[in-house]
């Protein structure tokens, strides 16, 4: 039995301090992982783990050989003129690159989960700019942590351990000098981590935009906060919030899912980026940076892989082997039914998209590449099992702060299951050789 220090791919924080005891065949013990991380390691032996390839015959999914399943995939792709490829935030960068190569070869449209999540902030920042930071910089320097529409205690469980309680290299103190601010309409589990000098701001639902606008106005014109307060916060709360933001030497705003909601005629993200810009212009001694709290372990990776290989960070449409300009996203493609089959990799759109879109997606053949059962794999036409990246195969991934890390292999996958990158390579090879 050997103990190894490994990186956990349970979420986008990619903790690199996990100890795993293994004999090379099974994982015996996992030390230091959170609930989500433990689940990730337990997936290897989970009862709903997908181990055998499956194809749909007479309405039923039946086990088959990998060759039969790949042949069925090839038949679907050869009949298709508008295939969709979607997912990739639970895949390595190597698999993402292979996915883009496949999309190019089959004249498909490829997008990642990021486009309906934190990628929206990166897209907005193309016009306004964005100041990002890294986890190490936060540990070493940050004195203000603002979580807006985010519940790190449940979504990225060890994030607060790292950024709030760690002692920094350039500061003599740790938690004592860090102010934690949480802005959320719901009193989430994260509120329980707050100390006496922290600021808990439970705002009225759907009033984030009013709060952002009031803060922008107060930054430009002192005394503009109305006496009755804004968004359910009183005037003193607003003043404390602004004082903390403008007085921080190294402030960090963690942007959560709560800020990605749609509000009619407003662009929350754009206005938030403008607020940060105004505060940073006013700042005499420091700055405010952003961290995007995407959940999946390689959501940030697709942006980098797509941008560095194609010049576009998401929503790639290929026609005649060339990338073309397109305003489409995965949402508009599905909504307009502008596809005739889909390859879904490491995600479950039938569960996580609204049912109107799920119905449209389900009306065309679905090929799933995943290592666990999902609503999408249950209704798919072909299911290809994949190895678990970071446990059963290696792969490059990007942490939520856009730092690249190499995941290592710990044990062999069961039943000769191969990685998603190798599966995509086989699909591409079959398509090219039998065409």
């Amino acid at each position: 039995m050997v103990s190894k220090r490994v990186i956990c791919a349970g979420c986008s924080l990619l903790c690199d301090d996990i100890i795993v005891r293994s004999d090379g065949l099974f994982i015996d013990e996992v030390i230091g992982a959170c609930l989500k991380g433990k689940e990730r390691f337990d997936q290897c032996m989970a009862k709903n783990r997908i181990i055998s390839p499956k194809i749909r015959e007479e309405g039923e999914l039946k086990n088959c050989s990998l060759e039969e399943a790949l042949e069925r995939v090839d038949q679907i792709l050869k009949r298709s003129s508008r295939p969709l490829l979607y997912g990739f935030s639970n895949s390595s960068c190597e698999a993402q690159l292979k996915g883009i190569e496949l999309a190019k070869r089959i004249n498909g449209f490829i997008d990642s989960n990021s486009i309906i999540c934190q990628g929206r902030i990166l897209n907005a920042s193309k016009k306004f700019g964005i100041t990002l930071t890294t986890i190490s910089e936060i540990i070493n320097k940050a004195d203000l942590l603002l979580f807006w529409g985010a519940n790190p205690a449940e979504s990225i469980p060890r994030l607060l351990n790292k950024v709030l309680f760690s002692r920094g290299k350039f500061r003599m103190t740790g938690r004592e000098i860090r102010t934690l601010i949480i802005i959320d309409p719901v009193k989430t589990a994260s509120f329980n981590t707050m100390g006496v000098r922290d600021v808990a701001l439970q705002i009225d639902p759907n009033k984030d935009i009013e709060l952002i606008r009031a803060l922008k106005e107060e930054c430009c014109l002192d005394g503009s906060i109305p006496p009755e307060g804004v968004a359910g916060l009183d005037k003193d709360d607003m003043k404390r919030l602004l004082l903390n933001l403008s007085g921080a030497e190294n402030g960090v705003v963690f942007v959560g899912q709560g800020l990605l909601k749609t509000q009619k005629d407003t662009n929350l993200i754009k206005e938030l980026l403008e607020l940060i810009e105004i505060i940073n212009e006013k700042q005499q001694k420091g700055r405010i940076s952003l961290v995007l709290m995407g959940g999946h372990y390689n959501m940030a990776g697709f942006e980098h892989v797509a941008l560095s290989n194609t010049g576009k960070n998401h929503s790639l449409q290929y026609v005649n082997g060339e990338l073309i300009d397109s305003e489409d996203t995965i949402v508009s493609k599905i909504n307009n039914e502008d596809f005739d089959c889909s390859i879904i990799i490491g995600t479950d759109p039938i569960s996580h998209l609204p049912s109107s879109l799920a119905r449209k997606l389900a009306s065309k053949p679905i090929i799933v590449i995943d290592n666990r059962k999902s609503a999408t794999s249950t209704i798919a036409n072909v299911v290809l099992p994949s190895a678990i990246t970071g446990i059963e195969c290696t792969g490059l991934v990007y942490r939520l702060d856009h730092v690249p890390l190499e995941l290592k292999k710990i044990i062999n996958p069961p039943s000769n299951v191969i990685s998603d990158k190798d599966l995509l390579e086989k699909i591409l090879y079959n398509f090219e050789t039998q065409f």
Partner: protein
Amino acid sequence: MKMNLNTQRKVDYDQAKEHTFGDDTSLKEKLAIALLNPDDIKSLNISQKSHIKIISKYGSIIVAVKEEKDVPPRTIIMPVSIWANQITGMEEKNLVFKNIEVDVEITEEAIPGIDNLLNKIKNS
């Protein structure tokens, strides 16, 4: 009763975990739920054993009720799942998962299982 629906990822009600380790029953028990604050449960005159029908402009779903004191008044929180997504939708090009106006009524109808929902999705 008119309420405001928010979907959230919750560590105790996680669809990926239930799909991986659970079965159809545990999926339904953990995910086909609506979290309401105790005052709203009282005003709706229901108990934690009741079923409610939540109706939005995008659709409707029947789920079980769970009490959660930290949920704001007149708000329903549902874990992200296939059940919650029966009543979410899209506006223009954006998905709408939060701040959805819904009507809530008590019902004696059964909560649909994942098979029912998948059949509905596949065959509609």
